[in-house]
């Protein structure tokens, strides 16, 4: 019974969230280009940095080892791609389905519940992000940037990033009133993208490094980087814990907001 007090009832009543996946798959089957073109975004970034910036920057020291700049940046780009995919799907797309298409109103008239919708939509955003992460690993493999077989674990790390950002993103979207409010989304994701130890090591931030550690993306970047190098340490549990915690909060807020706003 403790769970019922911590989690809102809306999140406990979940039975068929996979129906939302089915519905979204039906839609994207016709506009697959939208999904497909997303594979290229991180790829282009990686290639550009490899071709140009690597020569300018030279090698960079991480944990006592010198590695080429593009190999340093790759995990950061992979984590950022997971974040961006999840945020895009859970903010703009959800807002359209909720406010304009009234999709959730019609779904709530069926046996589906608010929790089903929350988990289903968040799950879909995560899966979409995972497709990109997986493709990214193959790109790194093709470019000879993979350091360890543990790289497969970075898919798990990206799933955690996706969950955290999709959940928080969708929860935030339930508070949005108009499209103009979406101007603020990049105002949040852009600093996270730039300042999460993605483009240079935490040590470069000097005395500002504690700010970086407030970024949820930073915790994801650490996990992906550890996977790529196959270097495990107990502290990673804390980084994963932060992402799991955000996911649970976001999902709970989303489910209960759907319930209070649409079932009134």
């Amino acid at each position, binding site marked *: 019974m403790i769970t019922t007090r911590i989690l809102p009832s809306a999140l406990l009543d979940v039975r068929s969230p996979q129906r939302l996946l089915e519905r979204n798959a039906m839609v994207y089957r016709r506009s697959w280009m939208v999904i497909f073109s997303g594979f290229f975004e991180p790829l282009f970034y990686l290639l550009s940095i490899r071709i140009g910036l690597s020569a300018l920057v030279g090698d960079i020291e991480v944990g006592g080892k010198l590695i080429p700049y593009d190999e340093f940046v790759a995990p950061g780009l992979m984590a950022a791609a997971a974040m961006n995919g999840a945020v895009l799907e859970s903010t703009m797309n959800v807002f359209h389905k909720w406010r304009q298409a009234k999709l959730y*109103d019609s779904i709530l008239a069926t*046996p589906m519940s608010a929790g089903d919708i929350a988990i289903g939509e968040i799950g879909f955003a995560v899966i979409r992000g995972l497709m990109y992460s997986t493709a990214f690993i193959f790109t790194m493999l093709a470019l000879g940037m993979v350091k360890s077989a543990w790289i497969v674990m970075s898919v798990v790390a990206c799933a955690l990033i996706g969950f955290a950002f999709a959940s928080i993103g969708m929860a935030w979207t339930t508070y949005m009133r108009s499209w103009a409010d979406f101007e603020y989304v990049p105002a949040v994701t852009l600093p996270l993208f730039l300042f999460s130890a993605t483009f240079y090591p935490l040590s470069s931030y000097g005395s500002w490094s504690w700010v970086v550690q407030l970024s949820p993306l930073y915790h994801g970047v650490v996990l992906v980087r550890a996977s790529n190098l196959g270097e495990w340490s107990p502290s990673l549990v804390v980084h994963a814990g932060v992402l799991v915690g955000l996911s649970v909060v976001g999902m709970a807020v989303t489910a209960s907001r759907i319930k209070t706003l649409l*079932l009134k």
Partner: protein
Amino acid sequence: MPPPLITARSLVKRFGDLVAVDGIDVDVQPGEAFGFLGPNGAGKTSTMRMIGCVSPVSSGRLEIFGLDPAHEGRAIRSRIGVVPQLDQLDQELTVMENLVIYARYFDIPRAVAQSRAVELLDFVQLADRADDKVDPLSGGQKRRVSIARSLISEPELLLLDEPTTGLDPQARHLLWDRLHQLKERGATLVLTTHYMDEAEQLCDRLVVMDGGRIVAEGSPRALITEYATREVLEMRFGRGRNEERVDDVLGVGERVEVLPDRLLVYVADGESALAELHARSVIPESALVRRSSLEDVFLRLTGRTLVD
């Protein structure tokens, strides 16, 4: 008599300070076509949403299939079909896909959903539009897709909120025809409307709602017999001059109602009443005798017209 499908006692819906539904009592029997007739803002949609388990009851008792919506919403919703006031079709999907995915929300296997969807599109005469997107369809066609969609789960109870509002006469008649067929097959229909002709056409029994309350209840015929006469004589004396002619027509019928543009005289025999007025040299600009309708019942009960 079997137990009612829907039972409401002192049912109330509040939105903050506003009381949308103000203590209504309703019983709907299986196989019945039951209507809520009332003007905009009467509380019809609020009532339907509570029955559809998408809006919590503020106070009073509500049971559907003998179940409590507060705790068994999912079970109730799996047994009802809903046609909402505004079509909420999935714009990103085709007509066929709309039906199939809706069936999936009810956990109906895909193959079953497919074959039912084909049958239902046939039933609503939209088989040829199966692979079109929803958006280009006309209002009446969208309404028929909504009805087909609501039937995909083979519901025991169908809720229709203003099924024909905004449709042209031809589209309305096609829709009425389909709903009649459903009635003949024994479906239980609950519908709302602010058209008296629709209520007369479709409902076995109805309640008249106004300001969140039920002001009358019965079959369309019984309500007309109770609250109106057999016929109505409508006369126009020209704008602004109707009021001053009331005295001239008094005594001809049982009751006179004054509307801004005409006088209504409630009588058993309209033609002879008109003849009598002619004899008294009361000559209106135009006169018309018609059968009385639920509109007259509503006017009698509230002093207002249904559609203004």
